[in-house]
C-alpha cells in the first residue's frame, strides 16, 4: 500500500520510502520516515499533487512520489481514487492534525530510530 492509493481523510503510518537519490532523500528529510504518522488532507485536480499532513506540518507531494512511499493504513478508511477526478466525497475523518512524536515500531527510542530490517530490499528508480 502506498500513499498514492489512499483517499482523502485516510490516516497512515509510513513504512518505508522506496525511492532513491534526490526524491527519496527529500521525502525522508521532510519526515517521511519509518513510523511517522500521516493523514491525506486532500488530493489535487486530475491527479494533481496530494496534500499530506505529517505531524503538525502540511506537505504537498506528486502522485508519482506518493507511489514511492509504502504505508500501513491506520483507520481502515482506505479508498482507491477512481477516474480522472478521484473521489468527490471525503471519507473518514478529514482535517484533523496528528500529534507530534507519533510513531510505530521502535521509532521513539532515543538514539535508535526505527527501521525495517533485512528482507525487503525493494527499491524503485525515481526517473521521471
Amino acid at each position, binding site marked *: 500500500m502506498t500513499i498514492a492509493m489512499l483517499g482523502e481523510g485516510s490516516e497512515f503510518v509510513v513504512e518505508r520510502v522506496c525511492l532513491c537519490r534526490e526524491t527519496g532523500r527529500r521525502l525522508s528529510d521532510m519526515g517521511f520516515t519509518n513510523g511517522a504518522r500521516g493523514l491525506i488532507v486532500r488530493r*489535487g*485536480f486530475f491527479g*494533481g499533487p496530494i496534500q499530506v499532513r505529517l505531524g503538525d*506540518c502540511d506537505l504537498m507531494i506528486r502522485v508519482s512520489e506518493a507511489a514511492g512511499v509504502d504505508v500501513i493504513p491506520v483507520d481502515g478508511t482506505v479508498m482507491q481514487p477512481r477516474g480522472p477526478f478521484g473521489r468527490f466525497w471525503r471519507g473518514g475523518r478529514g482535517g484533523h492534525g496528528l500529534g507530534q*512524536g507519533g510513531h510505530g515500531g521502535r521509532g521513539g527510542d532515543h538514539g535508535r*530510530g526505527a527501521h525495517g*530490517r533485512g528482507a525487503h530490499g525493494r527499491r524503485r528508480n525515481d526517473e521521471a
Partner: protein
Amino acid sequence: MKRDDYAPASSSPGPRAITAALAGNPNAGKTTIFNALTGAHHKVGNYPGVTVEKREGSRVRNGRSYGFIDLPGIYSLTAYSLDEVVTRDFLLDHQPDVIVNVMDSTNLSRHLYLCLQFQELGIPVVGVLNMSDEAEAKGIRIDARALEDVLGIPMVKTVGPKNDGVEGILDAVDRVVDSGGGAPGKSVRYGDEIEDRLAPLEAALASDAAFAARFPSRWMAVKLLEKDGHAFEKLAGHADGTRIAALAGESSSWIDGHFGKDSEIVVSEQRYGYIRGAVKEAVKVERKPDFSLTEAIDKVVMNRFLALPIFIGVLWSVFQITFALGEHPMAWLEGMFGWLGGAVSAVLPEGLLRSLLVDGVIGGVGGVFSFVPLIVILFFLLSVLEDVGYMSRAAFATDKILHTFGLHGQSVFPMMLGFGCSVPAIMAARTLKSPRDRIVTILVIPFMSCGAKLPVHVLFAAAFFPRNAANMVMLVYAIGVVLALGSAWLLKRTVLRGEATPFVMELPPYRAPTASGLAWHVWEKTKHYVQKAGTVILASSVLIWAITTFPAYEPSAAELQAARAGFLADRPGATEEEISSRLETVVAERALGHSAAGTIGKFIEPAFRPLGFDWKLGVATVTGFAAKEVVVSTLGVLYSVGTEESEESEGLREALRGDPNWTPLLAFAMMVFTLVIPPCFAALATIRAELGWKWLGFAFAFMTTLGWVLGAAIFQIGSLAGLA
C-alpha cells in the same frame, strides 16, 4: 574569503567581535529575526559565482560587535540543491563563531532535523524557537530547558514580529562564544550498527590533521555514509583519501544490505528517531484547537475544482490592481520626463548633443523609470501573496498542468510575471531550487507576451483585423503560452533532460505579512530592477540612438525641392506649416534609411524575405531590441507618418494598410515574429546575469530560429492557401 572578511570591525578594545550565521528552514521567520537583530544595518549581495542572495548585517551591543550572515533557507544539508551547497560551503569555509538556527516552534521535529546537522559540523549552535506564541495557541508546550539538556544546544523562545526574545538570542550567543562553544560531545547517535561503521571512518579521517581541521571528522563520516558526492570529492584533499573512499563505500553498501534501503534514507530515519525521542521528553501537546483558519480557507482555496479558477482570479486581480493604481503615477513620471526633455531642448542648441540627451538618454531612461510605479505595486502585491503563504497554494493548483510540460508548480509565478515584464519575471525564477527547472522557466518566460509587446500587437490587430482586433491580440497571447509550454516540453526532453525534480513542498499556515518584511522585499526587488534595467536600457538607448542617427543625413536643396513639389502636387493649396511638417517627416524617413540601422535592415532583408518582410521591418526589429514598443515608433518614422506615432494613431494604421506589401497575413506573421524573437536588451542582460553567456547564446539562437521558422511558416503556408 576567510572568516575575517565577515567579522565585524571592532574599534574598541571590548569583548571580541562575533560572527554569527543565521540559518534555518524556509518559513521559519528567519528574515524577521534577521531584521530584528540587525535593524537597518544590512547589505545584500550574491554568494560568489552563484545567484543565491547573500545578506549581511551588523549590530553593536554592550561594546561588542556582532556580524550576521543570513544563509539561504534549507531543509537539510545535502548537496542536491544550490542553496544547500552554498550553506554548507559557507559554514565549512568561513567557520562562523556560532550558527543561530531559527526554527518554527509549531513544527519542531522537522526543524530540529536541520539543527542536528548543524551540530554535527562542530560549530556551536544556538536554537531559536520562533513563533512560540503560535505554538502556545496550538497547545504545544515546549520545555526549552529540557530540550537544551537532551540536545546540548541552548534554546531561546522568540516571537519574531513582536521582537520578543530577540535580545535573548544575543545573550545566548555571548554565553556560547564566551564559554568556548556550547556543550561539546553531544550529537545524534545513529544506533549501534551505524555507529560501528562511523567509528573507523572518523578515526581514518582524523589521521590527517589539516583535513580534519577543515572538515569535521564526524560530519564528514556521516556524509560519506550518506554517499554524498561532494564529500567524496573533498576526500581528494585527504592524505589517505583513496582508502577512506573505499572504506566508506563498503560501509554504506553494508548498511544498504542490512537495512534493505538506501543508506542516506537510513541515516535520515535514525536522525528522526533521535528527534522523536527528544521531542517526547521536552514537548507536550495539551490540546488541539477545534478550528483552524488555515484549514477553513484551504477548503475553498485548495478545493479540487476551485483552486485553478481562484488562482486565475487572483492573478487577474493582481494585474488589474497594478495597472489601475499604477496608471496615474506612471503618467506623472512620463510627464516629468517629457517636461525634462522639453527643458533640455529649450536650453541646448539643436544638434547632436541635444538629440543624444533628449532622444537617447532622457527618452530611454524615462521609458524605464515610468514603469517603476507598476513594478513597485506588482512586487508589493506578489510579496503579500508570498508572505501570506498563497504561493505554495498556487503551485498546488498548477503543478499538474505544468509538470506535464516539464515545468514545476513554482514556475507559475515567474511565468505570469512575464506578462508584465520579463526582467522581474526572470529574476523571480530564483525561487526555483532545481537549476534545470530554473533554466527552463527562464528560457520560456520571454514567450509570455510582455507589456511592451502589447502596442505592437494592438497596432497590427487594429490595422488589419479591425473587426477582430481583441481576438487577434488574445490569439497571440495564447500562442505565446502554447509556445512556452511546448518549448519547456521540448527542452526538458533534449538539452535539459534529466531526473524530474521532486515536488515535496511545505504548505505553511496562512500568516499576516509584516510591514517591515514587505517593505524589505519591495525595496530590494525594485532596486534590482532599476539598477539592472536602468543601466542596460541607458546603454541600449544610446546605442539605438547612435545607429539610427549615424551616418548623418543632410538632404540637398534639390531633394527638398523635389519633395516639396511632390507634396504640393498631391495636396495643392497646402499651407506652409503643412509643407514644413511633411518635409520634416520625409527627412526623418530618409535619415533612418541612410543610417546604420537602415543599412542593417537592408543587409538582413534577404534573410527576412521568406517571411514577406522588407527592410523597414528589419530596421524595426533591430530597434525593438531597445524596447519592444519602439517597433511602433520606428515604423511611424519609416512610413513617413511622423516621429511620435503610437499604436492608437490612425495615421500609421492607414499608412500600413495603404502599402501594397502589407496584408493581414503579413501582419499576423509580424505579430508572431515579434512575440517569439529574443526579448529586449534589458531582458537579455538579465538572462545573462542569471544563467551566464552560454545560456544567453542558446536562448538567443533558439528564439531567433523559432521566430523565423514560425514567421516564415505562417507567411508561406498562408500565401499558398491564398490568404496573401
